[in-house]
């Protein structure tokens, strides 16, 4: 019997459920390793070599190297784990969130100050404003 996953029709949103968690286990655990300063230094010194210590898929490694958070999420990453990469790079949470929207940092910040992204037109895939 199919599981109840009513959240698949929300635009621009990936829910980190048990299925995504399974796919992203090693990617997210790599991110957790960056909570230690010594690991952050080793990662920064040679990113590829550090990533190769983890049994991640090549797609996951490429997404990390490109700092493409949308692709990281598609391959099982969760934003709270991925935030450790941003912290290693000295990025704020707003910079990380904005990087996934196709907007510039300034455009995203201005949108938030103006009240944020509207819910109208953003509830369902294919919905018209």
């Amino acid at each position, binding site marked *: 019997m199919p599981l109840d996953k009513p*959240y698949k029709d929300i635009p621009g949103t990936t829910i980190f459920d048990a299925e995504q968690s399974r796919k992203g286990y090693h990617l997210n655990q790599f991110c957790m390793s960056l909570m230690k300063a010594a690991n952050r230094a080793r990662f920064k010194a040679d990113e590829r070599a550090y990533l190769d210590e983890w049994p991640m898929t090549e797609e996951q490694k490429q997404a990390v190297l490109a700092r493409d958070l949308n692709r990281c999420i598609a391959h099982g990453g969760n934003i709270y*784990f991925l*935030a450790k990469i941003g912290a290693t790079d000295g990025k*704020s949470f707003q910079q990380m*969130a904005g990087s996934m929207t196709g907007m510039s940092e300034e455009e*995203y910040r201005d949108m*938030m*100050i103006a*009240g*944020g992204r509207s819910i109208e037109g953003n509830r369902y895939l294919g919905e018209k404003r």
Partner: protein
Amino acid sequence: MARISASVYTSHVPAIGAALDLGKSGEPYWQKVFAGYEYSKEWFKKNTPDVIFLVYNDHANAFSLEMIPTFAIGCAAEFMPADEGWGPRPVPKVIGHPELAAHIAHSVIQDDFDLTIVNKMDVDHGLTVPLSLMCGQPAADKFAWPCPVIPFAVNVVQYPVPSGRRCYNLGKAIRKAVESYDEPLNVQIWGTGGMSHQLQGPRAGLINKVFDTNFLDRLIADPAGLSTMPHIDYVREAGSEGIELVMWLIARGAMNDNLLKVAHRFYHVPASNTAVGHLILENPS
């Protein structure tokens, strides 16, 4: 007998902690946030409890994907601020209340809520930012939080997360547990997280003021009805991280159903990516 005297609800945005720690709280952007907590700090000074039962969620700091408990109660004597990747927040360690925490764990588990008892755990911004907002920054010569805190971590990161209904009923079980504790402690329960926000994907930056306003209204006046709202409504209407709001229902469930005093209410957009909501509710004495 211990009793729950009041509840506090607040967002726990990490950038609020960073603004305080980096001395940016006077900037106009942040003043609009902190102005909403001026009354709260005065209120807290006059109403400092013996213990805070603080409901929050860990953000991949104490718990990795090795294991994530759905409900975790901190029974340790103390808890250190976590290094979330930017270094630990320069705030005091959190002193627990192991006796009351163990009592609550025992009672609530016997009431069919399967809590995980945790004796070693760092606490992240989800717990320390609400303390900073309500207590202010502790002075250097008295570097401590004003009272003990029992950390209560809820999984809202890895789906499925507990339902609003379950959270609300858990709050009732926590109240029963507190009221069966022999020592006459004044306990506050805090529910943190929310309000509308989404931190991931092309829909990041979502804010829904209508949803948030309605949530605050119903949390005060119709918590039982609000608790039946399904997850999908939170996610669709308030963003993927807006689901944190189920934690407010734990605190609300531990309060009287009605005849509450609304001591304070505040709402502001934005703090970083997030809508900031805040309530103080008092039980009649």
